[in-house]
């Protein structure tokens, strides 16, 4: 028995048991390791991916719940870092250890999809589920604003 869904635009059939968290299917079976494990309990946001465009915590989402749907991981952003968010992350030198940043970027990408001009409060609301133990919050916020400004121009 397999579960079929799309990852970053490609259809996959995975053989993991239906109750296996999507996170481990993405990382160990599909082999996309950009999505990280931090808590296993939807408390830290390191595992954030998009399900049909909305941010979810893949560590508590059983793979059965994504059957027939579209999943996007950090690897859906351009490898050459040309997405406005990636460019802004580099411009502000956001990452330190970097471990949470895939999740941060996916939460930020979901925010900017629905809100092209987020206020500080909007950013706080969208991003406060993502822990950064290195404390890069100030730079993340600045980078989101930079990226939003670029996307508004485009």
């Amino acid at each position: 028995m397999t579960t079929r869904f799309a990852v970053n635009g490609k259809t996959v059939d995975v053989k993991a048991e239906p109750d296996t968290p999507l996170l481990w299917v993405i990382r160990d079976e599909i082999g996309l390791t950009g999505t990280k494990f931090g808590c296993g309990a939807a408390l830290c946001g390191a595992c954030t991916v998009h399900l049909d465009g909305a941010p979810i915590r893949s560590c508590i989402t059983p793979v059965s719940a994504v059957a027939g749907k579209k999943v996007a991981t950090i690897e859906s952003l351009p490898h050459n870092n040309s997405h406005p968010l990636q460019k802004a992350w580099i411009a502000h030198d956001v990452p330190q250890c970097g471990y949470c940043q895939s999740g941060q970027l996916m939460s930020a990408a979901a925010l900017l999809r629905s809100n092209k001009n987020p206020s500080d409060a909007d950013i706080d609301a969208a991003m406060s589920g993502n822990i950064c133990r290195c404390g890069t919050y100030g730079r993340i916020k600045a980078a989101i604003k930079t990226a939003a400004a670029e996307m508004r121009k485009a």
Partner: protein
Amino acid sequence: MSHTTSADSSRQPASGVSRRGFLQTSAVASGGLMVGVNLAGLSADALAAGTLHTPNAWVHIADDNTITLLSARSEMGQGVYTSMPMLIAEELNVDIRQIKVAIAPPNAKLYGNALLGGPQLTGGSSSVRDGWDKLRTAGAQVREMLLSAAADSWKVDRASLKAENGMIIGPKGKKATYGQLAAAASKLPVPEKVALKDPSAFRILGKRTKRLDTPAKTNGTAEFGIDVKLPGMVYASLEQCPVIGGTVKSFDAGKAKTMPGVIDIVQIPDGVAVVADTYWHAKKAREALSVQWDEGAGATLDDKAMLDGIRAGAPGDKVLPLKAVGDADAVIKASTKVVKAEYVMPLLSHSPLEPMNFTAHYHDGKVDLIGPTQWQDGAQGTVAKLLDVKPEDVSVKTTFLGGGFGRRIDLDFIVQAAQISKAVNKPVKLLWTREDDMTHDFYRPQSVHQMAAALGDDGKPTAMTFRMVSQSITGRVFGLPLEAQDPLMTEAAMAAYEIPATRHDIVKHDAGLRVGYWRSVSHALNAFANEGFIDECAVAAGKDPYLYRMSLLTRQPRFANVLKMAAEKSGWGTPAPAGRFRGIALMEGYDTYMAQVAEISDKDGVPVVHKVTVVADLGRMVNPDTVEAQIESSIIFGLTAALYGEINVDKGRVQQTNFDKYQIVRMNEAPAIVITLVQSNEKPGGIGEPATALIGPAVANALFAATGKRVRRMPFTAENIKTA
């Protein structure tokens, strides 16, 4: 961590290696004798570039001019992946954006940290301080060797040649890339004496430089320990005793063995490991294990009883004098105006976001280790000893670390991975759960600080006593004898304030739980006590806390300067916005002088931190942008501890298991951080940690300004504030 003494080297290389001696060692080694040993640490990219020459241990140059600079320090967020190569590149005259970086393999002779007494260890805000002369010298040595090779080959006067941007340029348009000259250069003797640039000529050092690891950290390709994959690798999840130190009495793996994907179930000294074809299968089957434990001596531990024990002391506890000037006790006894206080710090977990993990492959009496560690030769030596193989048969490849903060100085999870691999005869990736990580940490020890001061007629202290009681970490990690002073307990114990009579001492008390180095180590403990206490003295004297401090710094220009600047930048002495209050704190740590002003409001009995003004004087800087990032990082890290951080232990079991009960400051709670860096020609100070230690006292002092409550105990919860 900071300077360790020569007494604490039982498991370490001799700590008497002087910087000069060290350089000679690496110079000898780089004369060709060590060629090849470093290749294990190089990326596949660098290897693919062609023949690698090794002009010295820090620089590899391939025929195609691919230049790889080594970082002997682990990248855990603090920026060494960029700052270490910057130091080499400045003298080598290469473009920092054109080089590759590799993390050095274990070899403490070549890559040891002289500031820490020799181990190849990342910690103690020491990377730049340790590398400042050493790495510039290494770059200059290679530059000189390339110049000599060109002069020999072209038969021209060496003085007519220039090394520029990866090329040697000679008269009449002659030029060659470093790669073209590398083979010849690597056969030359390493020059002992090389001229280093005057800082006014620096083109890389001191300039804001984009981190070299950022692109890989924004597209998901940066490799952390959790991402390692070896051919034929299996996954392990380890059930450890809920009481740290407990051992397996017996276990029943009957049900677990029948679960999907399970390959083997093995006992190792720390517990029972389930090995499976995927991590999730291993973890699920682990939940089906039934293990009987011998919980051992730890089963009675209780954090409240531990704290009482620290406060009361034990018969064997030794008072270790730190410094005494005059007879402070007599002055205080005779004084009519005395301030006394006790400050208390709780247990803390490190909780880096990447849970502990390592990949190990035991084969043919050798062990390959890949993963996140802060201590390369420690991993090599300890695994060799415990698996009974030769150290040279243990390789260590360091990935990016998903946070360290001191937790990855310890080696428990590395040893476990190696033992499991040996037991199942396969490459194994061991991954802990968050719950494993939080309940099996090496915790920051509790501390109790007993302080007293006598105030003179002018309000200034005429005498002060300071006693810190806590548990020595250095005893466990480096074998420091009980009767020896622990330099990692005394940091920031003696504040800069000018007080005529003082007595400072340290009491080591083993509270029974294993403890570890936690970002800024004892600075955070001692600065909280000292900076709260001096604020109390100011209040008792009826003085402004900032002006009071300044009046005690008449012969301390670097302290006075950062304090004065912080007061100015924060608007100290001017009205704060409505409902906001300020607190100030000052410290030197890791040769860095720093002052912080926290601006807070009181919301339902707990502080909300809005803004932190920081002034830091750390002498010469490698990358000012990274310096700022580390200050920002340290403040958020320290604020998490100040507002929320506490580990409780009940019947030997750590009660906090995940981020719901062990809260971390999130974006909506993060203050604005305004940083001013003092331009200075002093020798470099460390910056990965010191700011951690000051945010707590700055907030506590602001809280006093807001509420009149003096909080002498972290964290600043409603309950701790109410009972203050």
